[in-house]
């Protein structure tokens, strides 16, 4: 009987050797470990054996069963691994084929740049103030210290709107966002006319100039202005704030330079240049070999403007500046044609 068991074990293990698939393995299990397999027959026949033989044969049969089972398990594992390896190999893709496209949306580059600017200013404590695009001569010019027929008006060519009965105060397309300075100061001053609160605002928006549409000049453009008014605001603060802004906008080591200039609504006035970020000041076509880029005009708010806004210039002072997001984009990405911005060509817009 023990010989028979050895024979069963030997035959079974031998036949297991050649099995490579799941179906054959199952057939083997039924044939060698199933109810009617020779090994199970041995267990069934144990009762017929003598008392002396029974423990020896029983122990031997159990050993063979354990051996066959573990051989089966091992084989099953091997077949599974082989099958997995095969399917992994078969499933392999050409990973160099293009990925599946998803249609994505984007903000217009001007909006992106406006946000960059306004985000930095927001962190510096400037709140966004917006106002209308069509204005009166009074708010766009007179209250900002541009008297009628003043040569300063030559600096900003104006689109006028056809309107009846407004010879003294024509309607026009705002030439800058500065009318918002007047609106804002008057709103703030109304909160407490005797002792108006301080102001720190950023004024973004579309402005218009009477210009030919060329690669270099446009009839509409965005502007962001800043306005600070308070009882303790100095030209040194202006320099500090705008240099801080430049370092946030153009890099931690951006160098700035303030040149005296002229704007009717500020005095003293200045232009802020930033060292050319294309060539690092060495001179290139972007900075026209000057090493510097004109980034913004600024100055201390003119006493007349403070007065017109409801702030007493003997107690309050302030500063203001204005800059162009499209110009910043043109410098940064070396865009040589300003007409791209309102051309709405997707091939331009999708690059941002």
């Amino acid at each position: 009987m023990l010989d028979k068991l050895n024979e069963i074990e030997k035959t079974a293990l031998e036949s297991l050797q050649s099995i490579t698939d799941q179906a054959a393995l199952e057939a083997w299990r039924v044939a060698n470990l199933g109810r009617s397999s020779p090994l199970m027959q041995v267990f069934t026949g144990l009762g017929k054996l003598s008392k002396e033989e029974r423990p020896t044969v029983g122990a031997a049969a159990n050993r063979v069963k354990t051996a066959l089972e573990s051989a089966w398990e091992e084989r099953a594992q091997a077949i599974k691994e082989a099958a997995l390896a095969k399917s992994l190999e078969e499933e392999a893709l050409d990973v160099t084929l293009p990925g599946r496209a998803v249609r994505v949306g984007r903000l217009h580059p001007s909006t992106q740049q406006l946000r960059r600017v306004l985000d930095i200013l927001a962190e510096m404590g400037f709140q966004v103030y917006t106002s209308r695009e069509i204005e009166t001569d009074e708010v766009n010019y007179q209250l900002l210290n541009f008297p009628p027929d003043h040569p300063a008006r030559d600096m900003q060519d104006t689109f006028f709107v056809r309107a009846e009965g407004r010879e003294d105060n024509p309607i026009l397309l705002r030439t800058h966002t500065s009318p918002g300075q007047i609106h804002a100061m008057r709103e703030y001053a109304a909160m407490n006319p005797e002792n108006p609160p301080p102001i720190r605002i950023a004024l973004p928006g579309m402005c218009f100039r009477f210009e030919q549409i060329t690669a270099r000049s446009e009839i509409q453009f965005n502007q962001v202005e800043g306005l600070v008014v308070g009882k303790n605001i100095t030209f040194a603060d202006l320099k500090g704030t705008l240099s801080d802004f430049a370092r946030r906008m153009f890099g931690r080591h951006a160098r700035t330079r303030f040149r005296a200039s002229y704007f009717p609504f500020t005095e003293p006035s200045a232009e802020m240049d930033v060292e050319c970020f294309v060539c690092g000041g060495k001179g290139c076509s972007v900075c026209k070999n000057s090493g510097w880029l004109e980034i913004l005009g600024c100055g201390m708010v003119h006493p007349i403007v403070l007065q017109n806004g409801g702030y007493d210039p003997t107690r309050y002072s302030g500063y203001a500046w204005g800059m162009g997001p499209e110009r910043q984009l043109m410098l940064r990405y070396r865009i040589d044609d300003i007409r791209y911005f309102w051309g709405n060509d997707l091939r331009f817009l999708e690059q941002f």
Partner: protein
Amino acid sequence: MKLPISWLKDYIDLDGLTVEDIARKLTLAGLEVEEIKYAGLPMPDHAGSGMHSSGRHEFKTSGISWDRDKIVVAEIREVMPHPNADRLTLLDLYDGQQNQVVLTGAPNIFHLKGTGKLAKPIKVAYAKEGSTIYDGHAEGLVLTTLKRAKIRGVESYSMACSEKELGISEEHEGIIILDDDAPVGMPLVDYMGDAVLDIAVVPNMARNANVMGVARELAALTGRELKKPVIEYRTEGESVENLVSIEITEPELNPRFVIGLIRDVEIKPSPYKIQRRLRLAGIRPINNVVDATNYAMLDQGEPLHAFDYDVLKSRAGNKNVKIITRSAKDGEKLTTLDDVERTLSSTNVLVCDEKGPLSIAGVMGGAESEVTDKTKNILLEGAAWNFINIRKTAKQHNLPSEASFRFSRGVHPSLAETGVKRGLQLMAEWSGGKIAPGLVDAYPLKPKDSVVDVSPRDVKRLLGIDLTVEQIAELLTRLEFKCEPTARGLRVTAPSHRLDIGEGVIGLADVLEEVARSYGYDNIPETRMSDSLPPQIGNPIYEWEERVRDLLVSLGLQEVVSYRLTSPERESRVVKYDEYVTLANPITPERRVMRRSLVASVLDAVEKNARAESIAMFEIGPVFEPVKSDPSTGSGQALPNEPRKLVLAMTGLRDALAWDVKESPNFDFYDMKGRVELLLSGLHFTDVSYIPTDSVPYLHPGKSAEVRVNEKVVGVFGELHPLVKDKYEVEEAPILVAEFDLDVLRTVSPSYEIKPVPDVPPVFEDIAVVLDESIPASKVEALIRQTGGRALANVKLFDVYRGEQVGAGKKSLAYSLTYQSDKTMTDAEAAAIRRKIVRRLEHELGARLRS
């Protein structure tokens, strides 16, 4: 303004400062140097290579330097014929070291050919072999190095130069003939090497649009001495005061008028030094008299006008000349010296005699009294005019000139006398004329020099720097302000050449600007604000609109921004309006009105990108609605409304084509509706309804819907009407458009709350009903939701079926229902809700449950 450095050096010692140092100081002080053009002086070593030795570059630079050893002053001793060429000559020339034979074709010495040894040698600018100059015959400016060559059998290796060859001007008609005192052998750069600063003059710097002004600024900025010219001359003959009188009728327009007289001038070219300076300054030399008026103007800032005295005398019938200044009569005529007859209006001011107009004041002289080659005696005018009036007149007649440029920005009346004297002095010097004693000076309106109080406290409060009274006085005195100490600080009086200093709070700002400039903007520290913070108001409208932008981008739409200016024709493809905000001065008819339809703007963008496989875009911005004027207020036309709109447009393929995506359906109504729904749910609107509409003219009447929030119409969307689409050059695919009124949408914007996520699993159930085709799906869903109540968490339409199984005129709608309650729901509870829903659908909509 173009300013030669050599001229500046007449009035200030610039030793030790490079041209770039000077340009930098002026630029930082508000006289921005836009370009430096070298005409002889050594260029900084970076200019050629584009690099500064320190690695920095500061100014746009052009021009040429003259080699000290190779380009020198020389003299022509004889002009000899060329053996083989009639039109060329050979110069016997001495360069200070040796004799040279130089070949030239210059026409301006040709007449001396073969006349033998010259009695008086001619001084020229001589470039030796190996020197680098501009090629006189090339188009534009091309550098060339002189090499030995044979021209018609005669060896040539050097050159007598023209102005073009030396980078002085475009002039190449002949060689430069220097003044007789030019020292032979001297390096030309030492004799007349120059550099020209091109300075942008802003309106409040108009006083500096002259050499003296810039020299004064530079003296203040460097602390060096300003050397004013000595204006003294001999006079002879009868005093002008006995011969000419002046009547000013409107002092507001003509505060001062000064006249001088010079007799027996000989009209001829000015000295070369003067011609060269004028050319470098951008003014064409004419003759010694005209040049003297221009030179004096550039020198001192006072535009002058020269009259032929004999013409005026004969007009006066040989009696005394009376000059009258007055406003022109409307329609009055004057022929100006450019030989154009100009029709004048009452805004123009005229200089007249008793017979009639002589010139347009401050803008242009008349032809009749103009100086000619035959002129012998000259009346020289220096006057002051109202700058606004001159600005209007120059604009009206389109006559920009050096004179009107200055007068329209303001010239101080005190300069009238200085200017006339300087002009007379130069004329006498260059023409041999004799100056008559005295000046006729009518000065009815003398401007008051502004007086301003300024204190160290003011300086600290506005500039943020600590200066003592003495320091402030020192800075202002350099700019010729008079300073007297007071208890608080200083009382300063503006110098009498300045019109830009006010009084009171304005004057204080004006004076503080001068303190800051004189101190140096770059010396003012950078500080962070220490003032108290403002009230926090924010900008909810702006913030909400930015949220809308973000949502639309997340839905795959590209933002576009269009011109606000358009034409009614362009918009009429979409919608016709009678009234527009119309420009009075459009740049082109294509952009003559402010847009009323944002849909038209975005459809223009769609058309522009028609070739794209797929388009999904949006724009947010204002449209401009004219507002009828209210006659009762009498304030004229009102400002337009600027409501803010949102427009979405989609067309083309829904899916991106690729190697495994061979085709795709076009975007249709439901693609747009999906975006609209997601936008509104992203903004947390809940009570949204979509009502069929056929009243939007630009939309397909059967494929358009009104969007209502809380029963308020906030927008419309649908497929573009085929007739509208036909007006655009676009592809076949339908175009979907949505238009929202953002101001309305924002006002109905809801608040919302976040619900807890349920712990118990939901129960799902499907239900399909058959009903009449005419019943809109939205009605069915609304009834299901209403009936299901709180337990019915979600209703989703998953199938729409039409066909034989449901019969003609009917449709089957299949919904999947999601029940959700606080505790696990039993089948019986779910069945009860379902029965209720079915019953109401049957009763109210005539629906039949589909088995």
